[in-house]
Structures are given as C-alpha cells and as structure tokens.
C-alpha cells in the first residue's frame, strides 16, 4: 500500500510553529509522507498544494484563532472543486466547543491539546483510507 500523504500547514499570520513541526515529525516517524507547507498559507494556496501533491489529508495546525474563519473558505473551495480531501484541524487553541463546531461544519477531525500522539496517527490513517 502506498504511503499516506499528508499536507501540513498553517493559515494567515499564525506563526507559532511548534505544533506543526512536532506533528510533521510524528507522522513521518509513523511512516507517512508529509508535505510541509509551513507558515503563511491561505485556503486557496493550501488547496492548490494539496491537489498538486496528491495529499490524502490536509492538516491545519493553529496557535491563533484565524483558522476559525479560514476553515469555512477552505471547505468551500474543496466542495466547489469536488475534492474529497479530509481536513484535520489541530492545536492547543482548539477547545472542545470549537471542535464540535468544526466537525459540524465538515472538518473531518478537530484535535485539541489533550489528544495523544497515537490518536493523531490513528486519525490521519483512518481518514486517509476512506
């Protein structure tokens, strides 16, 4: 089976990269291919990168609240282009309440600060295989 390909990036001016890099390393260690888009992405640039890189999953790392607004645009772009790429949002700022709202909007999984490494890997693996 081909390796799971995950695009990891951050949106807008959100620059605190600790979580994004840690998750990228974690997924690589779990045998996945990580395309690290880093900081300063907008929804359109992430969708474009996901298509070009044939990513199975888009992972958004966040340490500011900007994702709350960008996620709608990201999901809309994916729908408009008929792309079925699951979006995972994760970060210490994602509260339980935020997570419920994100999932209701169509985010495949929202992972807050209490998530374990095993859960992150299992979540990505499960979404990539759907």
């Amino acid at each position: 089976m081909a390796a799971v390909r995950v695009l990891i990036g951050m949106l807008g001016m959100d620059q605190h990269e600790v979580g994004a890099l840690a998750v990228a390393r974690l997924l690589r260690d779990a045998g996945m291919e990580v395309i690290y888009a880093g900081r300063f992405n907008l929804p359109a640039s992430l969708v474009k990168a996901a298509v070009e890189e044939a990513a199975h999953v888009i992972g958004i790392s966040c340490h500011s609240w900007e994702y709350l607004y960008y996620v709608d645009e990201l999901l809309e772009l994916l729908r408009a282009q008929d792309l079925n790429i699951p979006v995972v949002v994760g970060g210490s700022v994602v509260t339980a309440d935020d997570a419920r709202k994100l999932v209701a909007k169509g985010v495949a999984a929202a992972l807050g600060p209490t998530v374990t490494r095993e859960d992150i890997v299992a979540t990505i693996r499960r979404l990539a295989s759907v």
Partner: protein
Amino acid sequence: MANERTTQSGIPVKPLYAPADLDGFDYSQRLNDPGAYPFTRGARPVRPGHGAWIERELSGEGDPARSNAQFKYLLSKGQTGLDVIGDAPTVACLDPDHPFAVHAIGTQGVSICCLDDYRELYRDLPLDRVTLSHSLPAAFTVAALHTVARERGYAPAALRGSVIQAPYYAEDCSYATFMPFRLRVRMTADTIAFCSTEMPKFHSFIEDTYFFSETGLDSVEEMALGFIEIRGLVRELLRRGLPIDQFAPRIAILVTCRMDVFEEIAKIRATRRLFARMMREEFGATDPRSWAVNITAHTSGLSLTAQQPVNNVVRGAIQTVALACAGVQAIEVSTFDEAFRTPSPEAHVVGLRTQQIVALESNVTQVADPLGGSYYVEALTDELERRIWSMVQDIEARGDAAALSDSGFFRAIFQNAMERHARGIADGTTPKVGVNVHQVAEEEDTLLRAVAEGKIEPFRERIDWVRAYRARRDQEAVRASLDALVACAQDADANLMPPILAATEAGATLGEMSAVLRRAYGMTTDPAGALASAA
C-alpha cells in the same frame, strides 16, 4: 542512564553539593558584590529599595484606544510599568488591510500602523515617568514615540522605556517581517545609533531572547544565541564609529524563565558575568554602566499548559520567585490563559498579583542575591557560563551570522528545539502535570476554563479605518517622504531614522514604509506576493 539527574538543559547534577565543588573559588573574581564587576550578583549596588523590579503584564489588544484602556486598567491595579505587543500583522510590518491580516487584527496584540494610532496608544501616559516596553517594530515605533513626545511637550531625551530588537532570528520563529537580514540589521543599528544621542534614557537595544526561546531552546542555547546577536550588533555599531560607551549602557536582555528554578537563576547570574567580561575585556568599554547589563524577564509561556489552566498560576509564582532571587529589573508573568490567548483582564490581575505577593509578602528580596555562595548555584553558574561561551565560540567559528541565517543554520536550531520539546512532553521525559502525568478527565477540567477560552473577535473595522486615514492625508507629502526614505535606503552609510521620522510625521503607514524598504532591498513591493510565493 535513565536515572541520571540533569538540569533542564541537560547539565548533569549531583544529589548534593559541598565545599569541594567550590574549590579555589575566588569571591572577588567570580562574584564580587552586587553593582561591582563582574556583576554576577546583580547589576546594581545594594541600596534602599534594592530588589524591587518593574512589575508589568503583557498588554495590547484590538485598536490603540482599547490597548490604552488596558494600560490604565493595569496601572489602576498597581502595575509599575507597561508592556505592549503588536498583533501578528503589525509585528510583521503589515497594515491591517493587508490580505493576510484580516482575521488576525488586534487578536494577539495591538493593531497599530500610523502616527494617529500612536497618539491614541500613548494618550494620557506620562512618557517621561512610566516605562513602556514595546514589542513592536523598533524603528517605526521609536519614530512615532519621538514624534508624539515632541507634540506633547516632552523632550525626547527625557523619554524612558524600551523596544525589543530581533533582527537575527525573527524570521525563523514567529516574528517574520519579510525583510532581508542586512536590512533588519541596518534598521536595528540605525535605531540604536539614533537613540544613543536623541533618546539616551530609552533602552533601544533590548536583546529579546524570550521570544525565540519559546521554540523550546534550553538555557544554554538561549543565551548563546542572545550573545551571538548582541556581539554582531555591537560589532556593527563599532564599525560605524560609535564609541562603545555611547550605546552599551542601554543594552538590556529580556530572558525567559522556565521551570528549572536553579538553572534559570544560574543562567541570569552567568549572563551578567559573561556580559561584563565581554564588554570590558573584548570590546574595551570603560564606563562601568556598559559592563552591568540589566536583565528583564518574562516567565515562560511554553511552560504553561492548556490543561488545567489554574496550574499555570502556580508555575508563574514559582518562576517569579526564581526571578526575584536572581535579581532582575523587570518581570512579566505569562498568564494562566497563555495557551489560548493574550491575557484576559482576569488573568492580567492574577499575573500582577503574583508579582505583588512575591514582592511584598515573601521577603525574598530583602537580601540581595540570596543564593550567592550556594555550592550548587555557584557550580551551576560556572558550568552555564562555560557552556554558553563554548556555544558562542562554536557558532562564531562557523562564519558570519548573515550567511548562517541565510543557510538555515539558526532555523535548524529552532526546529530541533521545537521537535525536542514536543518529544519530551510526548514520551514523558519532561514531566508536565496535567499533560503527561496527573491528568484529569476533560469534564473535570473546568476551573478557570471559561475565562481562559474566551475569544476576541478580529478588529476588522481597522481595515476601513486605515483606508480612510490614508485618503485624508496630504498625498504629495506622503509620496515625497517615501521617496526620501527610498533614497536614504540606497545609501548604505546613511541612517534610516531621519527619513522614517519624516515619513511618520507626513502620515505614512508602517506597511507603506516597510514596503518601500523591502523594495529598496530588492524584494517584492507587495508582501502578499512574498507571502504567496512562500506558501
């Protein structure tokens, strides 16, 4: 070696220290009294009121008026200094109507981009008495402060306060300005040179090791990289012909304070000693004020957790005691809601009260450098001094900082630290109560949670505001001032501050001035293009 004891930075420690650990220890050479070379025990001599520090909490939220209200709120609670940070677009030198700014306006700091904004930020503040520490783009902030002060009748020479400088590492850890290395260094040196004559009481050279340590650096890496930047800037200022004693007295270091109490204390003591030796013996400073470096500190935000936010209050208290024992000139306690946001009003008061309780009730400041002479703390201070200096020499042997920055050498250090930090928490080698040990179920984790998770809406009204501001200026004057700034930028020997001052007075914005400077240095006019191509 799973049971080997080490400090947070990996220095092996024994379970007990004894006189043999200080064999041959020479008091006058290694310590001396506070206020005397090499200043290990403190930058200032013991005198009435010694041990007191400036108590401040991080502020800046929404627009300048809201941030000014925060200042007044904190002062009314007994705060003795002010500290303001810009929001993410401002720190990146972008105006609020930049396409990348829209959802980040005023949510993690103040949105501030022009002279009218600074007038509002400083409204009613006694600028010659209150010390305002700025985590804002230095050159532009100094220009605006200088201008507002003159408008209000303050002599710039009487201005106090400080501004952080972060030219070496900003792009690599959370403070990207989208400016090339040599422009960042030039703007820093220009600001310091300008202030050394125009605003001699103002600390225009705050070496900020705090923000880049939040990537997960250890104490040795933190101070080594800090010294690398200080040394680079000092050499640049000397190259321009500035006498060392003209600017060195206004160098201060803003450090982090992690949870390893004695290592953080030893780090601060070692830093004072290293700085003194470097200034006197290497750079030839003769004014004792150039040898004695002021240390200010923020307690580590990275040490705080989203889980059980109330535990962060305890962490802040322990760190504050450590800093009080180390002897610092100012403290800011990172607040219990740090994992989620810049401080809420409730968290502000808890952070300030933490400082006030340590200062007034604990008696830890009655005696200067109370740990001086401790077998352990002195041995650790010596070891940190050795390790920090060894890392400085190792990095300097690799070539000049600009090349190291461009080649990603520094970024690799930060990236390694980020991964190491995450790994330590994940595998439990770094115990974090509430995270990897003594966790509670999510439904039990409710204390202070609602406060910590409170959100601020982006101040999107700033977009229309800045556009209207631009429209009502004297457009010719703005254009001419920006042209003059570009002309100055093209002369490498000129100081950028006079044209930045003139452009600020003419009404140019932070984003406009930054854009023409980026262009003058061969970058794209539109930072959005720079950003988009980086994506």
